């Protein structure tokens, strides 16, 4: 075990004089880096949410809003298309105006006799429901 006793005689080294300052500087640096990383993470998270929200809003405004009244839009389109065709055809069409006399069709109610119908139940044995 003599040689093992020599282990204690092995050269011993000490930390350099500025060791503590270096460690403290490293600690401060890492703290700052961690703060920056945390801030960057928060900002990126906020940015991601904001961009998602913006995309959602833009989709709603420009895409979904246009698509929602699809039938009406198509109908309008058809009407527009028809109105576009109409002037083109108007040169070939001849407008026909026919006069109609509705005086013979409509009778005044004042000439008819006034009639009042009284409806009452005839028998108790039959159904109580009133028959007209």
């Amino acid at each position: 075990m003599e040689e093992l006793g020599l282990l204690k005689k092995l050269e011993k080294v000490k930390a350099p004089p500025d060791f503590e300052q270096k460690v403290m500087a490293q600690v401060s640096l890492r703290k700052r880096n961690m703060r920056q990383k945390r801030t960057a993470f928060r900002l990126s998270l906020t940015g991601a949410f904001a961009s998602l929200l913006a995309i959602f809003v833009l989709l709603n405004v420009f895409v979904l809003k246009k698509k929602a009244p699809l039938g009406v839009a198509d109908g309008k389109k058809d009407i527009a298309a028809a109105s576009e065709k109409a002037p083109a055809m108007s040169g070939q069409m001849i407008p026909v105006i026919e006069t109609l006399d509705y005086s013979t069709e409509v009778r005044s109610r004042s000439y008819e006799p006034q009639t009042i119908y009284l409806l009452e139940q005839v028998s108790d044995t039959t159904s109580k429901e009133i028959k007209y």
Partner: protein
Amino acid sequence: MRMDEQELIRQVQEGDEVAFGQIVMTYKDRIVNYLYQFTGDYQKAVELAQETFIRVYFKANQYRPVAPLSSWIYAIASNLAKTEMKKTRRIPTVSLDDIVAHEADEKAYTEDPADCGLVKNLREALNSLHPRYRIPIILKDIEGFSQEEIAQILKKPVGTIKARISRGRSLLRKKLEKALAGGRVSS
């Protein structure tokens, strides 16, 4: 002393940098020396020791007062050193600047420069040991921890630590005998 350390680490958990500074002051030399014995590279040891204390600060909330603070700090240092060794084994590169800086620093901060042949051979023999044996031997024979404390640091059963120390010492003796007999220490 134990109570003081517990109070210090409690303050560090609340973000007190002054208390953290006191912990660094208390352990810096021991940790740098431990890591130097482990890696054999002063620059690397200083870097790892810095990283150890930075982790102590940022992971202070993970500390549980079931073990002494020193065991926890040594455990962090050991894990860092092991990870670093695995990395360097994968990428075996040495910067020329590191060599120059290492030599300069080693001369500047060595307490007891023992240059005799035996100690040099012993250093080589120790460095050639597998970390499995090297760490318990350094902690036991250089840092002076008990087997129970080493078991706490390395999170292994005491029996395993005893066996590793015994086996490591035996390997170290063999390597040293071989080196002294004339051959160089082989890993």
